[in-house]
């Protein structure tokens, strides 16, 4: 049961049961959709970006505990960040859940997002954890197409 608890840490369970920023966002000027065909996770992300800074963020959708918690905590952690800061967080988070280490990269403090470190022991769940982040990047880049983890 031990590494299962590593995956489903209390903070993750808490965010999956009570996701933050779980709403459509009035005044959003960027949106993107993400889809994980393997388990049917779907997310729609709403961003309000002003002067290159994420001022407002919200999401809707359905998914597993990991994808919901990840989306919830992602929205919390990028609010107020610049596009470049959000991009660096994405890269660090990606390294965290895939188990890749980037020694030469900028040291970026993941803060609470570090609770997702257990995901790297569950390769099939990496896509769940990373979906909202891919969707964020698509929204910031304004691609306007559905992101798929396949």
């Amino acid at each position, binding site marked *: *049961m031990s590494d*299962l608890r590593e*995956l*489903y840490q209390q903070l993750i*369970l808490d965010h*999956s*049961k009570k996701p933050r920023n779980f709403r459509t966002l009035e005044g959003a000027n960027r949106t993107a959709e993400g889809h994980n*065909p*393997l*388990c*049917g*996770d*779907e997310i729609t992300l709403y961003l309000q970006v002003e002067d290159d800074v994420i001022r407002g963020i919200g999401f809707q959708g*359905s*998914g*597993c*505990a*990991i994808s919901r918690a990840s989306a919830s905590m992602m929205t919390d952690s990028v609010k107020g960040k610049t596009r470049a800061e959000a991009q660096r967080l994405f890269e660090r988070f990606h390294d965290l859940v895939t188990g890749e280490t980037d020694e030469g990269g900028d040291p970026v403090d993941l803060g609470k997002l570090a609770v997702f470190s257990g995901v790297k022991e*569950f390769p099939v*769940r990496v896509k*769940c954890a990373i979906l909202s982040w891919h969707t964020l990047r698509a929204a910031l880049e304004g691609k306007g197409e559905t992101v798929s983890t396949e």
Partner: protein
Amino acid sequence: MIRAGGAMTARSRGGRSPAFEVERIRQDFPVLGEKIRGKPLVYLDNAATSQKPHVVIDTIRQFLSTYNSNVHRGVHQLSERATEAYEQARTRVQGFINAAESREIIFVRGTTEAINLVAQSYGRTHIGTGDEIVISAMEHHSNIVPWQILCEQTGAVLRVVPINDDGEMLLDEYVTLLTPRTRLVAVAHVSNALGTINPVREVIRLARRQGVPVLVDGAQAVPHLKVDVRELDCDFYAFSGHKVFGPTGIGVLYGRARLLEAMPPYQGGGDMIKSVTFAKTVYNDLPFKFEAGTPHIGGVIGLGAALDYLDGVGLDRVTAYEDELLVHATEALSAIPGVRIIGTAKEKASVVSFVVDGVHAHDIGTVLDHEGIAIRAGHHCAMPVMQRFGVPATARASLAFYNTREEVDALVRGIHKVIEMFV
């Protein structure tokens, strides 16, 4: 190995009958002795793929290590042996599904390829603009997408027979969808996502009454039920080797000889020709016309061994035992608060799809995996079924005759752990 009608000791299963020597049968499947994270493997993902008995593994090993050779062309003894074993397996399949002739058995990669073959070969020569193809709302993607591709190519239209809340096909609606424009009906014998056993005999009778041919997707039926293509009176029947205790990469298309003869080849290449010149190529006779290129020889021979094995166990006994398991699993899962079974048809094979309130199927799968229990979580390649029931995904336990009541009980304990963690 199990021998048909072997000594059935009166090993009482809580007073239940008939006695089915499941512990002895389990010895035939080496993988069932594996441990997952230190716990005994509980393999409940048989609708995805089934496990292989020693006899299948040994048969393939024997082919590869003692008479590996190409078929239908060698002048040497090894090739003769390989060809003989390959063609014996064809006769074996013919007998297993009671086809009239062995040339009606076409070896393909799997059910998916079989359906694509019919769609492209039969479909493109018999189905045109405005014609209609009828399928059901519970089809696997492999019995939807090939027809959509055909519709795009020909301008034909796909008609879908709806299902009720129990996951049963609505026959009244089916009758109204059979029109003078209907050119083909394609329907699952058993639903992979819901477990429903469709009334295929009636579906076929109604279609054939107006001269419409019927393809049956038998991928999920053949491991559980005795299939007799002549009794069904179907025109095409498709199934996969790996779901019926044989290897992956091999499957069967049964087709009525009269239809197959009139159909153009699906793929061109070696073995499917009689003679080739740049001016004209003469195609080979059935079944070789549809088997271009070197086939999956070991797979075919392995499939033959798997069907022999299944015959030895006895499909009637398999069906009866699995029915008991299904009843037990249905009762036990239904008794768990927050668990809802998706697919409650009166006629079902041993597939239990379920959802747990407040928990996504993928999380169920991960927690159960931690207990050594393998299930499938997702849309089961039947996304329209998920949409019909308004769920993003389900967890699915699919049982084979080597599963036990104790394994079902382990599943129930696992689901309680899931609920403890997430609810």
